[in-house]
């Protein structure tokens, strides 16, 4: 993990195997597929689900401060707990949950490098026992706007010509893929990308075993080849904000970018907004390649 700006935010599978029942540590699994936790999880881990636990079920938003405090207490998390996230899909949802915890200012959040995939590849044991959780003591501040971009801010950012990273697949970026013929629409009325956004698909940040690429490789991808700058305010987005939380994590903690925000409304909001700029094609400004 050498060379990362904040190497301490990554912990190894080995470390997690040793700290599953450490009272100062809470291991949290967050998945695309909820049944995976039921099928088997790291011993001592609780499950926090992005749709059911982290999102408000009425408004399209995250749980409010009181809701977040309750979620933490119920899962045995106190303000001084070290919370380690891991999950399926190369830690998408783990990064998403990590991001929501940072939105509420939780100090000590970490990611288990490699997630479920690496744990499985190493032949480590899965447990079906739910841990006995002693309720935590938690008070949260209001949301930290420095990690989250809402629509109006993205629009202003775009108009100011500031850097945006679209982390979706090239087909989604280009506007070719919104939905397949005869298949249900994924939920956006327009396809394409926000003018000015560069396309750096999220999988480029991870290795085959689910771990993050080296600092050198990430530096090459995001800084040398694409020209993003550590000090420039940068906004990342995808379809619903999950893949871009992974990129937000990489830029902020592994590469040390100072001001990165995740636009969680992402394409499911932008592609439905009336009057916002959209371009199609493979180039940031939509001009012919």
């Amino acid at each position, binding site marked *: 993990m050498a060379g990362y700006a904040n190497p301490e935010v990554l912990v190894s599978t080995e470390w997690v195997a040793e700290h599953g029942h450490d009272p100062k540590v809470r291991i949290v699994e967050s998945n695309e597929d*909820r*049944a995976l936790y*039921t099928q088997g999880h790291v011993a001592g881990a609780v499950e926090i689900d992005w*749709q*059911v636990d982290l999102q408000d079920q009425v408004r399209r938003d995250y749980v409010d401060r009181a809701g977040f405090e309750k979620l933490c207490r119920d899962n045995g998390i106190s303000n001084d707990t070290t919370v380690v996230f891991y999950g399926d899909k190369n830690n998408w949802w783990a990064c998403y949950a990590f991001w929501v915890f940072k939105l509420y200012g939780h100090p000590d959040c970490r990611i288990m490098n490699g997630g479920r995939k690496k744990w499985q590849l190493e032949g480590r044991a899965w447990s079906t026992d739910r841990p006995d959780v002693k309720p935590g003591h938690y008070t949260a501040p209001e949301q930290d706007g420095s990690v989250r971009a809402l629509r109006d801010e993205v629009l202003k950012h775009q108009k100011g010509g500031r850097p945006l990273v679209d982390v979706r697949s090239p087909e989604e970026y280009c506007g070719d893929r919104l939905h*397949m013929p005869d*298949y*249900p629409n*994924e939920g956006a009325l327009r396809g394409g990308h926000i003018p000015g956004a560069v396309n750096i698909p999220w999988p480029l940040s991870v290795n085959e075993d689910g771990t993050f690429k080296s600092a050198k490789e990430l530096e090459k991808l995001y800084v040398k080849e694409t020209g993003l700058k550590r000090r420039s305010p940068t906004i990342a987005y995808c379809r619903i904000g999950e893949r871009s939380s992974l990129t937000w994590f990489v830029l902020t903690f592994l590469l040390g970018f100072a001001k990165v925000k995740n636009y969680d409304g992402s394409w499911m909001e932008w592609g439905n907004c009336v009057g916002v700029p959209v371009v199609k094609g493979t180039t940031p400004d939509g001009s012919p390649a």
Partner: protein
Amino acid sequence: MSTVAHRIDAIVEDFVDLEGREKLELLLEFAARLPALPPHIASQRASGDHRVHECQTPVYLWPELTADGAKLHAEVAAEAPTVMGFVAILAEAVEGRPVDEVLMIRDDLLERMGLAQVLGILRTRGLRAILGHIKRGLLAASTPTLKDAP
């Protein structure tokens, strides 16, 4: 032999009163029963034609109409047990029954089972798309002029 509607009702009844965790456990029991692909189907998988594109994890479905009625062959990646369980439920429900009965399966099946609340709206939408995919496949198989429909 019970109709698709009877089988679906029985499955809904099994799920509806369970609490969230138990619902997922029962879904995993179904997932474990999903049969492996028979060789004549498995050989077609590489073409990718039968992949369900709206699923982010690899899901391959072959809704077939045989002389005995509907038959659903499927392969779902091990990392997607929820999808696997739901596909297994549908495979058991449609087995050997006429297409019109399959088309009558209501789209709110996951809501009736009480799984929609456990899974959230986006996952529910994805699974509902699988039901639609199976219905379209069987409809196409039963209507020669629709054969080329996706």
